[in-house]
């Protein structure tokens, strides 16, 4: 069937710069560039281009420009090019549209309608360059009260404390499985976590045995509906365990890692035969209620001798506050809430773009509800899904989170350009692929360095923002909505976010 689709991108070559070196042919996994028969010229088929910009960055002569294809249908604010292209694609292939990364739809971005406060005259700001500024964050259940005993100069805590995790900055790496991403990308996240003093989440693809001893202590291992790679050693080698109920990019549905990505090493890590689809059912079939969730939470605590906090990750959906309350009561130590902008390696487009609610709203609603019920201290909250910069981190924490997960931002640090083709397994940047020739493009050491740089940069910025507000510990910012003001928001939006409008 002849495809009726228009190209997405166009490639322009600056002819007097190009010396036909062939780097573009090697770098492009999409088949845009090819040699002609006698290898004297390079042909360009821009209809295959996905806009990943790999060739542009690696062209030694800066001879290439990749830009959105400018030809289009008659302009129409309703029947946009995206809509028309999707219909044509489905008419040609008859299936569920797959996409990668978080939603790119132009829904209102609440982070961009919230402004931060700063001290002027009436309370002094703090200069983080000269004064200590505390970003260290403890994640886990806190006791109702502390009993202490003072003997001479010694103070001893008598209350038995729940296991807590310590991170040096309130930024952790979100669950991205080995299988969805390459071993090198996975390793880079683990190495960066260890170096900086934070944690990474394994996603549901297990933790390779050769990584357990060194990186287990900085790993949050996931137990998802497919239970891939979940064995007692996996649970016990980790810093914490995360029960994944849902994710922001595809709330309410399961996931399929296609058989062609289940290579020998992935099959060993997930403990399934090579080449079979790794199917994660939509629900955990042993969890149909809060009581059932509680049973799995305590099963995991039993399996790890009550030494590890148990996280529960859910997608931000309509009744998220009530659900979160149930999760705390079920015994979770940390709740992860993944907003509708949350990323993914593969999701049905319709789910990604139309299901869930914004993370800003979800965090505010959950924090408020747990405070009203007097159980906010029983768990920590991690905001996840679309955290783009240090200001988003600060706003999420002021809205009520203890810390944030970053996924997409971390991958961008590693090289990702958001071409959204993760599900094809052909990632030109070596991130979302199991093709050894592509995966080796990402050097885990260099990747880790980029990630550590990013964490350092954001942490410095967070300290600046805190200092400006006159706060010297990230803890004092948590749920501190007095430091936020809305701009361009309606009454109901301000009410849900629990913040005043600018000028109020």
């Amino acid at each position, binding site marked *: 069937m002849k495809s009726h689709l228009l190209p997405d991108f166009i490639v322009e070559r600056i002819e007097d710069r190009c010396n036909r070196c062939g780097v573009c042919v090697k770098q492009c996994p999409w088949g845009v560039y090819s040699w002609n028969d006698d290898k004297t010229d390079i042909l360009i088929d821009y209809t295959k281009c996905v806009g990943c910009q790999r060739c542009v960055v690696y062209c030694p002569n800066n001879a290439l420009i990749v830009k959105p294809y400018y030809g289009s249908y008659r302009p129409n604010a309703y029947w946009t090019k995206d809509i028309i292209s999707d219909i044509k*694609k*489905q008419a*040609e*292939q*008859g*299936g*569920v*549209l*797959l996409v990668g990364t978080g939603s790119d739809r132009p829904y209102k971005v609440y982070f961009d309608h919230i402004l931060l406060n700063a001290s002027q005259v009436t309370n002094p700001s703090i200069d983080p360059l000269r004064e200590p500024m505390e970003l260290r964050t403890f994640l886990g259940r806190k006791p109702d009260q502390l009993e202490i005993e003072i003997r001479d100069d010694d103070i001893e805590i008598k209350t038995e404390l729940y296991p807590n995790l310590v991170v040096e900055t309130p930024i952790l790496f979100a669950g991205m499985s080995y299988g969805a991403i390459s071993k090198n990308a996975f390793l880079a996240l683990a190495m960066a976590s260890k170096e900086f003093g934070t944690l990474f989440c394994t996603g549901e693809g297990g933790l390779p045995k050769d990584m357990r001893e060194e990186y287990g202590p900085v790993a949050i291992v996931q*137990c998802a*509906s*497919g*239970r891939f790679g*979940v*064995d*007692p*050693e996996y*649970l*016990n080698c980790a810093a914490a365990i995360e029960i994944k109920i849902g994710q922001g990019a595809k709330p309410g549905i399961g996931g*399929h890692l*296609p*058989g062609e990505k289940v290579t020998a090493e992935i*099959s*060993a890590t997930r*403990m*399934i*035969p090579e*080449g*079979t*689809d790794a*199917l994660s*059912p939509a629900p955990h*079939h*042993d969890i149909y209620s809060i009581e059932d969730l*509680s*049973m799995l939470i*305590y*099963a*995991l605590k*039993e*399996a*790890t*001798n009550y030494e590890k906090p148990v996280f529960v990750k859910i997608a931000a959906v309509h009744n998220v506050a009530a659900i979160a309350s149930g999760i705390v*009561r079920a*015994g979770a130590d940390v709740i992860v809430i993944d907003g509708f902008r949350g990323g993914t390696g593969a999701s*049905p487009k319709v789910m990604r773009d139309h299901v869930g609610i914004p993370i800003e709203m979800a965090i505010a609603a959950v924090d408020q509800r747990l405070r009203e*019920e*007097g*159980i906010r201290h*029983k768990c920590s909250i991690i905001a996840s899904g679309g955290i783009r910069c240090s200001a988003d981190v600060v706003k999420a924490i002021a809205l009520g989170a203890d810390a944030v997960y970053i996924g997409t931002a971390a991958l961008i640090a590693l090289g990702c350009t958001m071409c959204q083709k993760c*599900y*094809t397994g052909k990632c030109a940047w070596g991130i979302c692929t199991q093709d050894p020739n592509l995966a080796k493009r990402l050097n885990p050491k260099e990747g880790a360095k980029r990630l550590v740089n990013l964490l350092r940069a954001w942490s410095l910025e967070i300290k600046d923002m805190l200092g400006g507000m006159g706060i010297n510990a990230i803890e004092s910012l948590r749920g501190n909505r007095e430091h936020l003001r809305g701009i361009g928001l309606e009454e109901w939006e301000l009410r849900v976010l629990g913040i005043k409008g600018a000028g109020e």
Partner: protein
Amino acid sequence: MRFVDSYLEGVRKIDEIIKYAKIEGEVAEIDARDLRHKELNDLMRECVLRGARKLILKNVCGQRYIGTRLFFNPGVNVEIVIYGTPGNDLGAFLSGHRIIVYGNAQDGVGNTMDSGEIIVHGRAGDVVAMAMRGGKIFIRDSVGYRTAIHMKEYKERIPLLVIGGTAQDFLGEYMAGGRVVLLGLNLKNGKHKSHYIGTGMHGGIIYLRGKVEDYQLGKEVGVVDMEQEDWKFLEKVVEEFCGHFGNEIKVDKDEILGEKFMKLIPVTKRPYGKIYAY
């Protein structure tokens, strides 16, 4: 609303409950009558740390996660004998131990079990062997709904679940590996009532003794002929089953194997490979 942690509240310390255990050499006997879920598991762990390798649990009544806490590195293997009714998630994440139950078991037997053996001299509830990845489970009588969901295998690690009676709906749903044997010994007219057998199945084998109509099967499974190897496998399994329960339910191997078995396998390893547009 008061916050109640029903699982942890009121749990006594080891020194207060150690009196419920009698440890003699490698054998420890625990009276579970007054013990809460966690107390029993604390006590079992303590007994193993003190050298016990066989735990006899008396008067068990609903305590959950029996065997789950006993993960040690390097591993030890413990035999746990249970009198009474163990609670949900018996042997969840089980690592190498042998559990024998004289009584019925509740939901979640062998949940995400890694290795070891569970033998139930009675029936078991829902979600038996969910995501089981190794070891063996023998249930003398019947089991509830959602049995062997997402059971999986890897190379030589092939989990085995043998059920003497029958199973309710969704047997082997999403099954990705392993072997399930349903003997149908208590069927009245030789017919299983389970529906949606093997829905979404993409690995492993289910052997059924007794009748199942086509409409009871999921779309993703197919019935294939039994081969010599299958009979050899079944002979071993049934022999083991009769070794455990033969005296109680008066059956013998030849009688069981004398009847027809159905073999169910997935139609494809990739049931949902063709529903996407790229």
